[in-house]
């Protein structure tokens, strides 16, 4: 219970701090106002699919909440997003249909484009998605994010497209007629109402014995709890991770991948056969599946030890019980 104790202590401290913060924040501050930004821009903003067309767009997507405050703190320069150098709104140049000012790059492209071509003058713009993906290359994220990529499904979209607006507000926003104050009011409400996912309810088994195919080496003893705790510790301050890890079990899905999120995921061998499956030659066999997962994550996180080729660091060499006397006899 070495780690357990520390964890308990940490949890208790975190709970205490949260409690204090809530008391401190709730006291003087008013629920309807957000912290002000250094630049003077609105702390949060609802981004509508602004269109030049007179008729309001019948958009199925909810508009996006952009928390200017958080982003301002996260990036070094305003030019990271305001790539022209002019602190204008995105929709000034990028409308739903594209405008000449924005070189006919649509708003959708400007926000979502990946693989953006490098500009010769050095002012390569970045979209929301491209910048967020770059963040996953950080060491604490890269372990998981180098082995898996998110499924771009409805839940992923709604992480950002999460503002509830009335049809009238939508129409006004799309036409650019919604006042700044009204926009801020909706944005503030959304920020305050958005809930972030809690931590997983359990850290899983303390030690997992991986012995399904042990023959050449002793079974591998995998410290499940320690790995989980370490992953959580790494991202505990990351607002980006908090926003996109929408379920408590999201973190589990790195290793327990391709199955519905659950605290009791199926065993690896359910999908990864012990010997090659003729119908699915591309699917890693069980042994490779283990190695690919462990080493992939370790490589991504730049874990120096143990090196990949040090077999006995993870699974001990089998005690040469039967062979030893035979070998000795040969000698």
């Amino acid at each position, binding site marked *: 219970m070495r780690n357990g104790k520390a964890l308990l202590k940490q949890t208790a401290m975190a709970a205490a701090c949260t409690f204090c913060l809530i008391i401190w924040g709730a006291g003087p501050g008013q629920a309807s106002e957000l912290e002000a930004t250094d630049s003077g821009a609105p702390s949060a903003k609802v981004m509508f699919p602004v269109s030049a067309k007179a008729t309001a767009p019948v958009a199925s997507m909810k508009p996006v909440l952009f928390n200017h405050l958080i982003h301002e703190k996260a990036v070094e320069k305003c030019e990271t997003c305001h790539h022209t150098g002019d602190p204008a709104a995105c929709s000034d140049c990028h409308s739903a249909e594209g405008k000449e000012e924005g070189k006919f790059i649509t708003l959708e492209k400007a926000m979502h484009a990946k693989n953006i071509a490098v500009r010769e003058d050095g002012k390569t713009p970045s979209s929301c998605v491209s910048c967020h993906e770059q963040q996953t290359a950080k060491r604490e994220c890269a372990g998981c994010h180098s082995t898996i*990529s998110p499924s771009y499904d409805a839940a992923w979209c709604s992480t950002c497209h999460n503002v509830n607006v009335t049809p009238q507000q939508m129409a006004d926003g799309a036409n650019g007629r919604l006042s700044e104050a009204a926009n801020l009011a909706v944005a503030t409400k959304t920020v305050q109402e958005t809930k972030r996912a809690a931590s997983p309810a359990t850290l899983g088994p303390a030690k997992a014995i991986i012995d399904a195919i042990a023959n050449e080496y002793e079974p591998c003893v995998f410290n499940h709890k320690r790995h989980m705790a370490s992953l959580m510790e790494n991202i505990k301050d990351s607002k980006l991770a908090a926003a996109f890890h929408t379920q408590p079990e999201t973190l589990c899905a790195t290793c327990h991948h391709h199955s519905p999120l659950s605290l009791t995921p199926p065993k690896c061998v359910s999908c990864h056969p012990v010997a*090659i499956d003729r119908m699915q030659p*591309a699917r890693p066999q069980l042994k490779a599946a283990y190695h690919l997962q462990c080493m992939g994550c370790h490589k991504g996180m730049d874990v120096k030890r143990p090196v990949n080729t040090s077999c006995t660091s993870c699974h001990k060499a089998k005690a040469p019980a039967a062979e030893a006397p035979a070998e000795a006899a040969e000698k």
Partner: protein
Amino acid sequence: MNRRKFLTFMGTAGVVSALGTAKVAKAGVETFPYYDNGYGVLHDMTRCIGCRKCEEGCNKANKLPAPEKPFSDLSVLDKRRRTTPTAWTVVNKWDMGEGKFAFRKQQCFHCNDPACASACFTKCYQKQPNGAVIYDGSQCVGCRYCMVACPFYVPSFEYGEPFDPVIKKCTFCFDRLKEGKLPGCVESCTMDALTFGRRKDLIKIARKRIEAEPEKYLDYVYGEHDAGGTAWMVLMPKPKDLPQCSTGNAAEAKDAAKRAGLDTTLGNQPMAEYTYGALGAVPMIIAFWPVLFGGAYGMTKRREAIAKANLAKATAEEKQKVMDAVVKVIEKEQGAEAAEKARQQMNEALAEADAPKTDGEAN
């Protein structure tokens, strides 16, 4: 028409129509007997960790002699190695730039249309329908032209063996495949860096992997088309300091592939096709040269004959001229009768002088 006749008739018709269909089926693009359903292996360098388990697996599966240093000794990776008669596969460490290293397993690529097989002048090599290129040393002369021809430096020769030296190379574990087992190296790979499957499926798998992680892989499946296509293919990591190549563009992938020791400049045709032009000229030379030189000989002979005839004619004329002159002088000094007599005598003397020579020639 009785029953037998009818059956014979129908049978003949059947054979004829079958021949017809066979011809139609054969028409179309001519290829080397390329076995579409053959197996292959996809080697994913990004997965390989250089543990040498494949070398060990190969050694065991083929009952090769134990190496000098054990397979667990990874220090051998520091030096570039090649396949030898006792190590049919070797793993090498390659510098991919910016301090990143990658490992690549080297073995026979089992080409679709193997250079070694086309180069062998005693038909020792055969491409099997299951994809393997196998070698039978029982009729090998030991000329080693296959080693010259192989663009991948794979076949190795037993130089130390005085009496029965033959070529040794990876067999794709041909006998194990027949038993339904995986090749020794593939079976022992701990990372599934070696994926066994039908070649056509492997290409799809490779494409999918590149598509899923375009930053990780070089967008080039080595062996898909190189040297006419190979059964064993390689996926390479994209060096960080080099730009991504356009899909399957050999020229753009050249520099990146070179870091992994792979040559993308071999071209898309089988290596043997480089020699087809020269071999195709053989019948033409056989047909044309005798005509050319025979003609030259004929012309020479004719020229000689004409020269000889001209010479004979000129000599005769000269003789006649001299004789006429002499006769004229005699006629002037001694009269016509004496001149006629002298002419006769001179003709006789000349004929006499020519006679023995002609006789000699006749003999």
